[in-house]
């Protein structure tokens, strides 16, 4: 993710983050999002029919965008090691399958992942900041972040303080993101909005802009621990935000839907949205990721189907 360099709050928006009032005014001045309209648009785009070569391309692209994730209380070093093996060679029978974008683990597993991925050009993402609830003090969150970065994480997936956001304390959320960003050093920051708790698309748009203003390299839908997790229309709103951000600043920022994306069909629908809402430039693992675990195997199965011309089965892809 080296080609994305984020500087917080570009001059265009310096005024917006001057103080609490200015920030609130800015976020509430963003155009509203009509629920029915955005859901209809998402449903309409979801009817795109992606076949043949374009499907194979989509599958490979999606594989390269997977943040292969394990975020369980029961995670062990063994589990993380096998995840990393999968990340390196997703389908042992087909060495031309691209590697995934990153693995995503808890901070205490970062060191294990670093070791397992030694020499591979695969990102090591760690959730941090008292994931998933984010309910801890700022100092703990920063410490959590530093721990992951020091262990070798190249990407940090932080959660925002949804309580603060929902109670209108936007500056607090903003400053927290800024602080975490600073703690990241050279690691890239993905800001998890936890859209399932934000309740409205208006809030999703505001939170997206808040995260972009604060310097998030990516905006990410969900922790995966709250339902609903990623949805197409929510992702549409976020893709529109990065598109608009680019139009205003010239900077590319990324989007990561996470949670609930399990099938190739789902993944392709997301890619169509990336293509047509944000734009073709975002069809790039540096700018779009899937936070997923079981998705990868479905992609691999569909890839085999595409190549073989007949349907494959779950026994032909590895379960890690």
């Amino acid at each position, binding site marked *: 993710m080296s080609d994305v360099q984020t500087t917080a709050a570009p001059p265009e928006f310096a005024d917006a983050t001057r103080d609490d009032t200015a920030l609130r005014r800015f976020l509430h001045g963003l155009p509203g999002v*009509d*629920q*029915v*309209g955005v*859901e209809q648009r998402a449903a309409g785009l979801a009817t795109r029919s992606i076949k043949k070569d374009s499907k194979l391309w989509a599958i490979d692209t999606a594989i390269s965008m997977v943040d292969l994730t394990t975020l369980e209380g029961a995670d062990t070093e063994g589990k993380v090691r096998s995840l990393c093996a999968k990340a390196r060679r997703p389908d042992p029978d087909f060495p031309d399958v691209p590697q995934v974008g990153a693995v995503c683990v808890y901070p205490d597993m970062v060191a294990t992942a670093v070791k397992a991925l030694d020499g591979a050009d695969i990102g090591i993402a760690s959730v941090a900041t008292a994931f998933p609830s984010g309910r801890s003090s700022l100092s703990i969150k920063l410490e959590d972040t530093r721990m992951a970065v020091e262990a070798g994480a190249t990407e940090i997936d932080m959660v925002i303080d949804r309580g603060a956001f929902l109670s209108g304390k936007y500056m607090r959320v903003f400053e927290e993101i800024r602080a975490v960003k600073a703690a990241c050093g050279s690691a890239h920051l993905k800001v998890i909005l936890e859209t399932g708790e934000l*309740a*409205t698309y208006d809030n999703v748009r505001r939170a997206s802009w808040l995260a972009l203003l604060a310097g998030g390299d990516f905006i990410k839908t969900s922790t995966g621990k709250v339902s609903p997790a990623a949805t197409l229309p929510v992702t549409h709103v976020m893709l529109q935000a990065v598109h608009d951000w680019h139009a205003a600043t010239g900077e590319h920022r990324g989007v990561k839907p996470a949670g609930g994306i399990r099938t190739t069909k789902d993944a392709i629908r997301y890619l169509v949205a990336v293509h047509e809402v944000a734009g073709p430039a975002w069809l790039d693992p540096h700018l779009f990721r899937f936070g997923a675990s079981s998705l990868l195997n479905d992609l691999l199965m569909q890839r085999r189907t595409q190549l073989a011309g007949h349907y494959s089965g779950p026994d032909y892809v590895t379960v890690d």
Partner: protein
Amino acid sequence: MSDRLTVSKTYKLYLGGAFPRSESGRTYPVTDARGRFLANAAQASRKDVREAVVAARAAFGKWSRATAYNRGQVLYRVAEMLEGRREQFCAEVAAGEGVPAKRAAALVDAAIDRWVWYAGWTDKVATVLGAANPVAGPYFSFSLPEPTGVVGVLAPQGSSLLGLVSVLAPVIATGNTAVVVTSQDRPLPAVTLAEVLATSDVPGGVVNVLTGHTAELAPWLAAHADVNAVDLVGAPQELRAELERAAAGSVKRVLRSAEPDWTAEPGITRLRAFLETKTVWHPMGV
């Protein structure tokens, strides 16, 4: 019996709330049913039609957006004022239509009651004709009746007051404005009605009353591009097809039903005739 000479009235047009003579300067004699001279009426011209349409259009915005409650009160006020001048109308109807005094009184009473009937409809017609449309999707859709606009009314030739009121009241009850061409030979109650309207809080221009020759005025009214609808009930039979053709030039709504029994309960057909249905959609979301 007094030997005092009565002051007789000059019957004029009613345009935009004022009572002008015809711009043409013409008048024509009006007689009673037996041919005795009653008065001279203004003989309106096509330019008077034009002025009347301008006045009706100017009045449309405010009248159509007045609250239904307000319009109901205004129409009821017309009934009140008509009641107050009952004797005058009885005399004019008796003379013009050649009916006995008792019959004339019954017709006038029915005309008064008709205003009351339509006064009560103003704030019910949307409830009866409107709808919430249960569309298959996340939308609230509703339909409301709205006034068509400026309505040209060729008033019945025979029933000079009750017929006139029966065709005029439903037009304005729903917020349209009207240009009325009165009964050609029995125009006097219409002019007197105009005086009632002028003193009943009916805003100027909402009703415009033209006396004159129907065959001369009707084609101009039917063809006028700023008239949205016409009621042909008082049109001479031989003119009807021509008027309908003229109306097609701007896709007017044309009410061409045969003349009913004006004393019967009118129903809402005439209310419906000059209403548009507007359907509004809005998504339902958070």
